[in-house]
């Protein structure tokens, strides 16, 4: 009886591992194919798609870099870094004001800020284009900085606020007794204590800003202001026949965020779990 049971168990285990590893192959192989194609020549691409590159040279990567990817990358880095800083600070201020400072209409403000979570960016697209054209910000770096910040404040404030609410009141009292102002309490006491959630929100915002497409596509058009996702599609339409260069560009766009995910995995998972499942 026992042996029969473990025999069935072994079969189930074999099936389970076949499935799990098979799925891993389905995930990894296309990515590997993308990386390998970045090393191939165009003619090789049309031969055997499973073959390894004949020579491993970096020419396609260099070509992609020189045909605009370096510009797209710089813009992406700039937009990502500035909008991350702006979003996280503005949200942390708001979360502090809403949880630790006695301000009027607290409840209404919470509703106003978190209510923004419900609104899909596409809904505001047409008026925003008109507005940014009027402001002279259309097709500038500022358009993306402002939009990425404004549209991510609700989510980021939601996460930081949920964390700050749980910090004990005694901390504020102690700081007050020591003569600290609200401003010092925020910078020196509360913000450092929120480090785990701040790291999570930074990672989540970087992933968002690096990958965002709708606003980037509608609000920018020249090489100087386009971010990587939009830049890749223009690379595709401009050099559509030189596929290996496009693959190289895709790899350049994907590597930083994949690295970021693996480095910050712990915080990232926590942030996601807190954000959605709390």
């Amino acid at each position, binding site marked *: 009886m026992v042996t029969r049971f473990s025999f069935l168990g072994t079969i189930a285990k074999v099936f389970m591992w076949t499935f799990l590893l098979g799925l891993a192959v389905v995930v990894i192989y296309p990515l590997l*194919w993308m990386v390998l194609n970045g090393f191939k020549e165009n003619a090789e691409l049309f031969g055997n798609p499973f073959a390894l590159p004949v020579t491993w040279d970096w020419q396609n990567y260099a070509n992609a870099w020189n045909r605009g990817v370096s510009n797209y990358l710089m813009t992406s880095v700039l937009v990502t870094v500035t909008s991350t800083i702006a979003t996280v600070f503005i949200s942390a201020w*708001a979360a502090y004001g809403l949880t630790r400072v006695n301000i009027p209409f*607290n409840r209404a403000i*919470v509703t*106003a800020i978190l209510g*923004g979570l419900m609104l899909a960016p596409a809904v505001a697209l047409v008026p925003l284009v008109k507005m940014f054209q009027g402001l002279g910000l259309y097709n500038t770096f500022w358009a993306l900085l402002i939009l990425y910040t404004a549209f991510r404040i609700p989510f980021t404030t939601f996460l930081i606020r949920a964390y700050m609410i749980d910090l004990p009141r005694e901390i504020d009292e102690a700081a007050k007794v020591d003569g600290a102002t609200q401003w010092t309490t925020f910078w020196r006491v509360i913000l450092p204590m929120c480090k785990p959630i701040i790291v999570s929100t930074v990672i989540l915002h970087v992933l968002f800003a690096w990958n965002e*497409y*709708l606003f980037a596509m509608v609000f920018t058009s020249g090489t100087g202001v386009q971010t990587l996702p939009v830049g890749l*599609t223009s690379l595709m339409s401009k050099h559509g026949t030189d596929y290996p260069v496009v693959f190289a560009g895709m790899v350049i766009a994907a590597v930083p965020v994949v690295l970021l995910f693996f480095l910050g995995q712990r915080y990232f998972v926590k942030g996601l779990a807190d954000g959605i499942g709390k």
Partner: protein
Amino acid sequence: MLTVEGTRAKRVPRPHSPIRESSSTRPSGIKRILGFAWVLPALVLLAVFVYLPLVQNLGFSFLEWDIYSGSQTFVGAENYIKLSSDPIFWSALGNNALYAGVSIVFQVCGALALAALIESVRRERWRRALRAVYFIPSAISLTVAGLLFYFIYEPNLGLLNYVLSGVGLDALTQPWLGQESTAMMAVIAMSQWQGFGYSTLLFAVAIQRIPSELYEAASIDGIGVIRRFFTVTVPLVREMTGLMTIVTISGAFQVFNEVMVMTSGGPNNSTQVLATWLYRSGFVRNDFGYAAAIAMVIFLVTLIIALAQLWITHRRRVEW
């Protein structure tokens, strides 16, 4: 899990009464107004760039508006009437619904089962590795994933047709994105590949929060693995399942990136979804009033879904 939820239920009333009671001197009126400065940047940005456009959009949806000549004419509900008789609008709405349906099967039900399977692996190192590998497609952008699958579906150099003919299924090889019958499903399939790791990760976190005593009790009772999944795991992660369902549906009605990158709504508008049809109507066909009307439909659908989410979270709080 119970204690975690319990503390949340307790702290609900707290945000409305911050340090006031405990501080010996009540802050003066001016000081309270100064406290406003903390939330002001967030409120201003949201008011100007999120809420104001939403209101403006409603107004625009009653206009006939040519952005290049600048002419705007009030046409009342005409854009909405046009919408109701536009076959592409209805097929776009249908495509969004199809997107939502398929995503619920794979990214909610499938992901839950997969997460349970992963969490049943004994070694932590393997569990972590599997979760991370499945997540990689969600870290790379939809643009990169979309372009990658554009090439995978490519009839001449693509992996998919090559694999099919390699295993003797030549009859199945086809231009996946180039024909109306398969294009939408091909885009949706890419989206499942890109997104299932994300929801699997979240379900895994939810499963880890289930007290292990419940599983031990189940195994003492001699309950099999599959029955245990339905009697222990599924009921105890049902809140996460509810939230994931709503997030998935909401996302499915906002799809834009992958369709734009892979097909731009073609061939013959067969892969248009609401957001791409909005984009095309406004920015390509210069009919911005009509685009604003489509935006109002997206707004209504996502609002209803968001209210459903609020209702679920509220009910959960009361339950605990």
